[in-house]
């Protein structure tokens, strides 16, 4: 986000931050409420991660202003996402490893 924004633009951003905060608070309440439904584990994981992803998008997109960031940051993050995916793929791969079973 530019450091050369006008005061009016900054005040407009501030209003957006407050709306994002309200959204995060509501989504937190929703994710806790859903947990009391005691869904099947597969469905519970899906719903919890879906809501957490929306919250993550709000924090990264607006508070960390990734929605209007420079290309170099996107490049760094794409590389990060790739290696993060590799990390998560490890246990997934293990799940289908039948060696010794």
């Amino acid at each position, binding site marked *: 986000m530019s450091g050369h924004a006008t005061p009016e633009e*900054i005040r407009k951003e501030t209003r957006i931050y407050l709306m994002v905060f309200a959204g*995060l608070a509501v989504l937190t309440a929703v994710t806790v409420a859903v947990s009391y439904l005691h869904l099947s*584990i597969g469905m519970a994981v899906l719903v*919890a991660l879906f809501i*957490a992803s929306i*919250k993550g998008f709000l*924090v990264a997109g607006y508070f960390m202003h990734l929605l209007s960031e420079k290309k170099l*940051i996107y490049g760094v993050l794409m590389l990060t996402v790739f290696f993060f995916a590799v990390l*998560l793929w490890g246990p997934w791969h293990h799940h289908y490893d039948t060696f010794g079973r």
Partner: protein
Amino acid sequence: MDAHAHAAHGHGELEIPFNVHPRPDTGLYNAKLGIWLFLASEVMLFGALFSSLILLRTGVENWPHGWKLLNVPLATLNTFVLISSSVTVVLAWASLRLGDLRKGKIYLALTLLCALIFMVVKAFEYGSKFSHHIHPSTDNFYAIYFTMTGLHGLHVLGGMVVFAYFLGPGAKMWQTEPARFTNRIEVCGLYWHFVDLVWIFLFPTLYLL
């Protein structure tokens, strides 16, 4: 090397280039690129632990439900506290961009207060577990719970030290270099939002599933 790099500061120190204005090639001031590279390494650190959690969880027939063993209301309270601190730190940055140091410091102080509340609540949670003789060595669930929340707590503690510095001696920079000080708050805010982001995923995966 940029001419600024060689320019002598008032005290004969080497001036660090591009700490206020963006580098023409990256479009970013250096500290901002620096914090994003650091956060990328942090994603890998926490990513390895999330990977371990998945491995432990899928490796056994019966993994305990977090909501049966952990205190969900306290963790929910902490989630609200942490998202509140995320908004106060971004409001501190916005206030400084508007030239209002007093308001910026109030928001920074509120951020520090939220971080303190988070740690106190966490201490109650841990204390309750320890009083029931539950430790990281109790089982795999508690091992990964204490490791992940403990590492996250250390990050909160680190953020508190930085906020305390910028509320105290670090704020002197505002008198001579307000734009640089504002950038510093943006950078530590980015770190703080990342700490919030990690909790957003830790909370459901450990407490609610």
